[in-house]
Each structure stands twice: as C-alpha cells, then as structure tokens.
C-alpha cells in the first residue's frame, strides 16, 4: 500500500472545499447534484485505476522520462504545454480562491496583494525543492493537520444542531437527471492521482488494488461530508444563501470549553497550510514539466523567468478576479478539467499499451 500515492489523492479531496465544490453541489442540489455525485464516484475511481495501471508499467519515472523515447516531438510539446497550463490554472484558482477567503474572514483590512506576497514567497521556496522533498513536506503537513480535520468532522457529525432531516430531504431528489457541472465538481475530488505525472518519480514499487478500495471509501466519505454537512447545518433551503457553505458551517460549530471557541479559526488555520501545499504540488508539477520541455540544462536565469511569469499571472489574477467572476470561471474550468482529464488518461493508456506490446 503505497502511502505517497494516497497522500496525493487525499490532498485533492481535502482542498476541494476551497475550490467551490460544495458551492456548486449545493447550487444544484435539487437539480441533479445527488445523482451527479453518485455517478462521479465510479468515474473517479475508474480514472484512477486506468491511469495507475498504465503508469505501473513505468516504475519510478515521471512523464518527461516516459515520453523521452517518443519520436513525435510536436505531440509531446502540445501534451506538455497543455498539462502545464491546466495545472498552473488549478493552483492559481486555489490560490485566488483562498486569498479571497482570507480577505473575507481573517484579514478584512489587508489588501489582497499583501496576502499574495506571503503565499508566493512560501510557494516559490517549496516548488524549487527536489520532488522527493516536496513529498516529504506533504507528508508532514498532512500528519500535522489530519487529526484536526478529523476532530472538526467529528464535532460536526455529533453536533446537536445537525439536522439529518434536511439531508434526507435533499437525498430524495436522487432521481433528478444529473447535471454536468455537478459531475465535474464531484469528480475533482478524485483528481489527485494526476499529480503522478511528476510524483511517480518518488513512488517505489507498483500500486496495488488496496489503494483503489481505500480511495473509493475515502471518496464516498469526503463527498458526503462536503455536500451534506452544510445542508445539515443550514437547512436544505438555507444552505444556498452562503457563498462559502463549508466555512460558514465551521463558523457555526462551537468548542465551548476550549480557549479558541469559534471553530472557524481552527478550520482556516488548518486550511492555510493545506492550501499552501496543494498549490505547491500543482505548481511543482507545472514547474518540473517546464523544466523538462527545455532540452538543455535549466539555468538560473530561466528559473527566474519562470518564477517571474508565475508571479505576474497570479498578481493579475488577484487584481482582476473578484469572487463572483472567480466562481463562474471555476465552474467552467471544472467542466473543462473533467474533459481534459478523460482525454489525457485515455491517450496515456493507449500509448502505454502500444509501448509495451
């Protein structure tokens, strides 16, 4: 049971709260979100399985090394460039979304660019580390934070104000026809495996079937908490009025005997580090792919140019994207991501088949 692979998937599952997945699912709760979630689970696990079976044939090699033997240079370049852009966009959406959350809940008087500065400083330190160290850092962050999230979910589930009736009420809309947006949003929870593009370099040994059963159960639990717990707290109608349903849910939890009474702060402190590592993982993949597209040695100057590009894009994104626009863009981006992912997995699977036949 290779735990590094599970960390990657788990990271994506946890960070989906920031990327508007609960908001999208709750928006469509009467119009097919429940069926969408139910469909998304097999799709997600199947994508996981297909991709991992394909990459099992190339142990300890990232995609640049795997595709090094291919002769279609144009195809390789298009493939890499598109994946770089999508991964950069994934990190960027998480970053802008979280800075918006911080500006709204934690530091309302601080300009967003100031929050961006500290996040970029930390991220640029992390993405330039070797891949193995990024993985170690991910493990440490998850170890420090998983007990806290477990505790918060436990508090949420055992809270006397959690209304199971509302959850069942939304559950009765199970046979509404599924909407594409909710399928895309729910599938994003399973997308952590795609980081294997680069992180396969640090995974030793083959991925066994136990991993996928674990992912299945974790995914079901995660989607359930992401979708239904806000509904349980705010009611099946009331859940729609919040911009960030899960954060408002955390705000409604109280730890009466602790020095920190409002759980929202614990929740946000926990998410500060999770978001940091999630953005770093996505941008590390993108950074490594950029390094791989250059044939020669990656000099310090090119390093700085890439970092400068990342900075400019994030500054522009923070300035021009406000919450509503970000929300809309994320919805369409998630749908696009679903299609792109299916395409990438299919292409890789067919290519791997042909290589080793």
């Amino acid at each position, binding site marked *: 049971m290779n735990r590094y692979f599970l960390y990657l998937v788990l990271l994506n599952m946890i960070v989906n709260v920031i990327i508007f997945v609960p908001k999208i699912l709750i928006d469509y709760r009467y119009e097919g979100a429940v069926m969408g979630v139910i469909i998304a689970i097999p799709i997600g696990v199947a994508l996981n399985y297909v991709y991992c079976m394909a990459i099992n044939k190339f142990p300890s090699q990232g995609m640049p090394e795997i595709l090094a033997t291919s002769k279609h240079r144009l195809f390789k370049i298009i493939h890499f460039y598109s994946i770089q852009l999508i991964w950069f966009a994934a990190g960027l959406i998480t970053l802008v979304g979280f800075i918006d959350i911080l500006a709204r809940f934690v530091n309302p008087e601080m300009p967003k660019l100031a929050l961006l500065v500290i996040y970029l400083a930390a991220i640029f330190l992390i993405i330039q580390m070797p891949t193995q160290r990024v993985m170690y850092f991910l493990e440490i962050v998850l170890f420090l934070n998983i007990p806290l999230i477990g505790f918060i979910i436990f508090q949420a589930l055992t809270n006397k104000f959690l209304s199971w009736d509302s959850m069942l009420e939304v559950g009765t809309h199970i046979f509404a026809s599924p909407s594409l947006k909710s399928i895309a949003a729910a599938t994003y929870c399973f997308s952590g495996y795609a980081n294997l593009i680069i992180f396969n370099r640090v995974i030793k040994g083959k991925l066994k079937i136990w991993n996928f059963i674990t992912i299945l159960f974790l995914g079901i639990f995660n989607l359930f908490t992401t979708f239904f717990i806000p509904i349980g707290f705010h009611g099946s109608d009331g859940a729609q009025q919040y911009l960030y349903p899960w954060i408002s849910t955390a705000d409604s939890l109280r730890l009466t005997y602790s020095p920190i009474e409002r759980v929202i702060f614990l929740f946000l*402190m926990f998410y*500060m580090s999770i978001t940091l590592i999630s953005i770093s993982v996505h941008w590390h993949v993108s950074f490594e792919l950029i390094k791989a597209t250059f044939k020669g040695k990656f000099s310090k100057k090119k390093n700085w140019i890439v970092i400068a590009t990342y900075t400019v894009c994030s500054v522009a994104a923070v300035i021009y994207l406000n919450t509503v626009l970000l929300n809309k863009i994320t919805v369409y981006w998630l749908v696009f991501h679903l299609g792109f992912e299916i395409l990438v997995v299919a292409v890789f699977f067919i290519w791997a088949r042909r290589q080793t036949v």
Partner: protein
Amino acid sequence: MPTNKVQTIKEGILNKIHKPEDLVFKENQTKEKYMEVLYIKSISDEAILHDNLLKPFFETSSSEEFLNFLQSNPKVSEFESEQKAIDELMRGVAILFYQDDVFLFDCKMDRNNAVMDTTVETTIQGPQAGFSESLPVNLGLIRSRYPNTTLAVESTEVGKLSKTKVMILHDTKFADPVTLNRVKKFLDTVDIEMFQTGEQLFDSIRKSNRALFPLMLVTERPDRVAVNLASGKVILLVQGSSYAVILPTVMKDLMSSMEDIYQAYWIAKFLQILRYTAFNVSMILPGLYVAVSSYNPELFRVQLAMSIAGSRTGIPYPSFVEVVLMLFMMELLTEASIRLPKAIGPTATTVGGLILGQAAAEAGLVSNIMIVIVSFVAISNFVVPINAFSFTIRVLKYFILLFSTLFGLVGVVIGFFMLLAYMVKLDSFGEPFLTLIQSKPSKE
C-alpha cells in the same frame, strides 16, 4: 663521533628552526657512546626523557646494547624525512642523533589531561564524566565504553597554521560508507587557518559558508559518543578540545538527551513531548501574541480576548514594538549572564526579575501578559538539550515575529510552514534533516 649523513641532517634541522629560546641541544657522552639530543623543553616532558632515555643511556655498558634498547623502545621511531622530523619536533618529540642513526623519541607533554565533569550537558542520573582536553585520554575514555574490534580509528590534520590533529572514529559494522566518505572529503576541503575545536566546522558544512541550523552535534559526554557510535555515526575528536563532533546529525538527535535512555520508557516519551512542545512554543508564541492582539483578537473566546486586549490598555505603542522591546531585553539578559563575574551574579537576577518585569509593567511600558509570554519563551528555549540548536531557535522566532507583524495570523502559520519547508530541504551529509531513521549501510 657522528657520521656525515647524521651531520647534514642535524645542520639542516638546526637551520630551519631558527633556534628559539626553549630549544635544548645537549651532547651526552660516556666512555663508549655519544648521543646528541634535540628538543623543545616547553612541550617535552623532561621527566619522561630522563627516566626512559638518559638513565638507560648512562646505565647500559655497551653501545650495541644501547642501540638495541633504542630500537626496541615503543616510544622511539625511525627518522623518515627532515620535514617530518621538524613537524614532530614542533609537537614535543625529541630528536636523537646516535652513531649513524637519527631517532625520534616521543616525550610529548600532556598537560590538560584531567577528566572533567560535564558542565553543559548534565543529566540527573547516569555518568557525569566529560571529556578532557587531551586526545589520547579522550580516545581511551571512548574505548573503555566501546571495546569492539569494529571500532575504526583514523587520523588526519586540519588547519593550515594550527595543524590540529583530528581523529575520525566509526564502527565499520554500522556506519554507512557513503556518509563516511562524504565526511572525509569534507574534512579535506575545510579551509581554516587556526582550527581550535570542532565547533568551527559549523559553517564549513554549508556550501555558502553561512549556516543557521547546526548540522553536526557537539558533545562533551563519552557515553553519548559511545551510544552514537553504536547507531552508526561518525565521530571526530579534536586535539585540545573537550568536545567531540558527531556527524551526520538530524533533528531527532538535536532534540534528544541522554536522559531518554537513563529513564523509564514512558517518562522518556513524556520528556520528548515536552521538548517538542517547548520548541514550538518558543518559536511561535511572540508572533502569535502580535497576531492575536493586533490582527485577530476574536480568535480566542470572549473572556480571554478581553483580558489580552485589556492588559494592553495604556501601552503607548503597537504590540510588535512592545514584543521586540521585551525580547531584546531578554536577549541582553541571557547574553550578559554568560559573562557575569561571580560577584555580580545576583545583581542580574534582581535586574531581570524586578526591573524588567515588575517595574516595566507598572510603568505602563509593557503589558502583564507580555511579561508572562517572554518568560515562557525564555525558559522553553533552554529546554532544548543541545546548546547550538537552542541558539537557532532564538533566531528563528524573530523570523516568525516578522511575518506575524506584517501579515497577522496568516504570517504565523505560513512562516512556521516556510521554516518547516526549509528544514525539509536541508540535509546533513546526505541524511535529510527531518529523518526519523538513520540510514544503514546497504546489505551487500
């Protein structure tokens, strides 16, 4: 009478050493034998010379017998080259010119060979002896705790001017040969003129020659050295220093003390948890105070938030100025108490306790909670057992304070994780700094 060869060597040596005041060049003559002795009297033990060389010289009757005596004496070695003879002369070895041979007689004076008590790394129970300042004595202390044939001892020289002898010890069964090679290569590339003690290597380990974290451990306890040898580390003993260097060092070693094996298991676990908590508290608390009192007072429950904010009423400047002021005073106090003459010692306690604490609070310059926090931070700083690492923590808390002043709560969390990311990036001779398991030599 001396032969020509011996004569030329003698002239050569005498020319090169410029006849210092403490150089002794004596001719000893009996009926059958003639010997000349050359040594520097401030570093040679004249008692050894007299008992082991001059007495037998005057008591043996034939020159053949004395030659046999010289050749079979363990302190006597053959002449190899002029340069080597001069180097040895400079360390306290006497040069003998006898018949047509030149011999080197080891009569080094070993002054600082008293075994001292541990001063810096004390434990409640367990051995209390520390190293001495003499290399052979230290080696003997280690060997008496580690009597295995697998203990390999090699010697090298570091320092262009000081030419300090350094001994490298490791256990061939447990130590990783890759790490050992790295250590040896590192010692060869060290560029220091005067090498007094192992602590000077802290900077040379990093390529940029500027280090913040200690990547090697310096200890004065032979029992710690013996335990570390058994777990596969490489030890360096330096002539003239009572501190041994343990390489490679990872964070787990920097937070461990010998108490962990001298106490019962759960007590040791409790002490370790205490240490890690103290490490975190000492780094984060000042930053957290600034973030909570100036950026997000609503973090804590109402009663606590009121008392934190309330204790700050009447303080005329922002919280970060107050924190920096108090921390600065605490740093001054800590530094000064290292160097206080014994007569003025109690004054420091009075100054620190009464004036900085009580009076400053009553004058309205710092809040009461700030005093509690600063004393917390100062005390928990010294819970970390390794001195070098506790200095590092003293510096690190200013980074987190800076981030927290500029960015608030986000600064504290992200600053802490940036430090963690930097520690993940570090490695000590190939071992990642935050590793939990020492690398073993690969099974052949």
